[in-house]
């Protein structure tokens, strides 16, 4: 038995959400009386060292030229090998695009129960229980499993980032036993779309703009970005702002955009439609800036300023600069 965590890597190294999952995995493994195994896949085992400080019992380095780039079928096959090798009964990934598809594919191939995008995990009577937020965050359900292996992908920011400690855990290697002929996908090109911006799903602060910027959208989003930059925050947007072409879709928060869970969410010129609230209602503190005192966003906000965002945002930026000594 063991709890297996896939440690995802991208062009910037280990995806930090994997460590959030690993931190929780250790708790789950302790409750199940078993060990935690962190699986690192790639053409070499160099990432293993960066995982050891997060305290898995074993770092399983599965290496081979076939695993140089992420490819769904190759990574699924390698993780199946890992599940077998360490007798994993619980498999966890971060619910990123890759983490979700690899978890789903692995679970389906193993005929194992799968809880996608879970927001919490616990052990009850010796069994894993995953909590899911469904109906676009309008219903919660506990997911229980009746399969020998249980697979869960975990929504980013569901668990705190663990503090790294002294490197622990032994590094073991495993040959995936895969050849290029076993892999159906060819990756023709990988283009980084990383602009150094903080991603919405990882952000602890988000400043978002909506249709309220309409009188001068470029200036409006520049003001949003300036406040975000002072706060080290990510920039978000409503669908109305995205549909109007003020800002690219990847910034959209809400039901057909991203679900976010920052400590602080500042909504400027956003009315608070339910599809927007579905994506950000889990924020710890919500601030609304809106010139309409009747805007529904104020019903969900902790703090509100009734006013013109073109005046309020620069004033807030200036004030934060002063207080944060920037």
């Amino acid at each position, binding site marked *: 038995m063991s709890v297996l965590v896939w440690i995802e890597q*991208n*062009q910037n190294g280990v*995806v930090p959400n994997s460590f959030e999952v690993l931190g929780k995995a250790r708790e789950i493994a302790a409750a199940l009386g078993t060990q935690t195994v962190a699986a690192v896949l790639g053409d070499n085992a160099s990432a293993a060292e960066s995982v050891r400080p997060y305290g898995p019992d074993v770092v399983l380095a599965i290496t081979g030229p076939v695993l140089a780039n992420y490819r*769904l*079928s190759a990574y699924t096959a390698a993780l199946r090998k890992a599940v077998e090798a360490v007798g994993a009964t619980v498999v966890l990934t971060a619910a*990123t695009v890759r983490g*979700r*598809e690899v978890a*789903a*594919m692995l679970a*389906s191939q193993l*005929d194992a*129960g*799968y809880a*996608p*995008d879970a927001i919490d995990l616990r052990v009850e009577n010796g069994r894993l229980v995953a909590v899911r*937020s*469904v*109906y*676009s965050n*309008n*219903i*919660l*359900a*506990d*997911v*229980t*499993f*009746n*399969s020998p292996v249980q697979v869960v992908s975990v929504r980013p920011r569901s668990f705190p980032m663990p503090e790294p400690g002294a490197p622990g855990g032994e590094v073991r290697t495993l040959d995936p036993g895969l050849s290029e002929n076993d892999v159906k*996908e060819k*990756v*023709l*090109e990988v*283009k980084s*779309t990383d602009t150094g911006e903080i*991603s919405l799903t990882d952000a602890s*602060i988000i400043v978002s703009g909506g249709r309220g910027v309409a009188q001068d959208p470029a200036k409006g989003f520049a003001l949003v970005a300036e406040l975000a930059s002072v706060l080290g925050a990510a920039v978000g947007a409503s669908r109305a702002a995205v549909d109007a072409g003020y800002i690219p879709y*990847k910034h959209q928060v809400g*039901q*057909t955009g991203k679900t976010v869970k920052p400590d*602080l969410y500042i909504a400027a010129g956003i009315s608070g439609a*339910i*599809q927007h609230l*579905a994506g950000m209602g889990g924020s710890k*503190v*919500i*601030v*609304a800036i809106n010139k309409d005192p009747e805007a529904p966003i*104020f019903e969900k906000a*902790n*703090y509100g300023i*009734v006013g013109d965002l073109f005046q*309020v945002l620069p*004033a*807030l930026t*200036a*004030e*934060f600069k002063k*207080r944060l000594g920037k």
Partner: protein
Amino acid sequence: MKVVVLVKQTPDTAELPKVSAEDVRSGKIKATMVINPWDEFAVEEAILLGDRYDVESVAISMGSPDAVDALKHALAMGVGGAALIDSSALSGGDLWTTAAALAAAVKAQGADLVLTGKQSVDDNSGAVYAGVAAQLGWPMVSAVTKIVDISNGQITVERMVEGAQETISVPLPAVISVGKEINEPRYPSFMGIRKASKAVIPSTPAAELGIASGSGKTQWTNIRKPEERKTKCVIIEGATVEEKAAKLVDALLAEKVI
């Protein structure tokens, strides 16, 4: 080339907040039901492929007999045919049960390509297509934002992951889930709606596809509404915008969220 589009009937997103825990427990959702908005992108892409290649398209849905409305929407948009898998006699399934039924239907259609939405707005799994691909043993690419080319039995697509855009090529038959960036779904035309309203959509009970009740590997229990966000909004007052900004910053620093 035969393209199957998977469409699900889901509650109107504006009514999702009204869905009660009891609705979900009983499976009787009291809301206006529509085609899953993410699936409109898959339907649109199937139609657009028809402009580029010699394509026969069929929409398939698994659900109650009411789900024909979602299929009619797809027909009204312009897909060539539709088929329902009637799951009303089925109980105790999970996402893999749905996937197994859809995979069986896809096979029966002799499809070369399966297009699906990103996720359903009710189950939010983003997983059923992986199950379909696994059942069929076909390659799968998710989060596709562009179909670049289909030729020589290969499909080449672009897709988005966090921080990168990948161009991937896989052999057909394959399963592709599409993202919102791929196209702009059309509104059904008047003629399309008229034609769809007259369509007779064949329905097959899930059992006939070899799908049994109680096959789920997971169950949902303790179904509940999330705790209401109970906030009393503090409206920051002040004579000037600078004063309001200063007071808000005070409050946020005190909340320790900066």
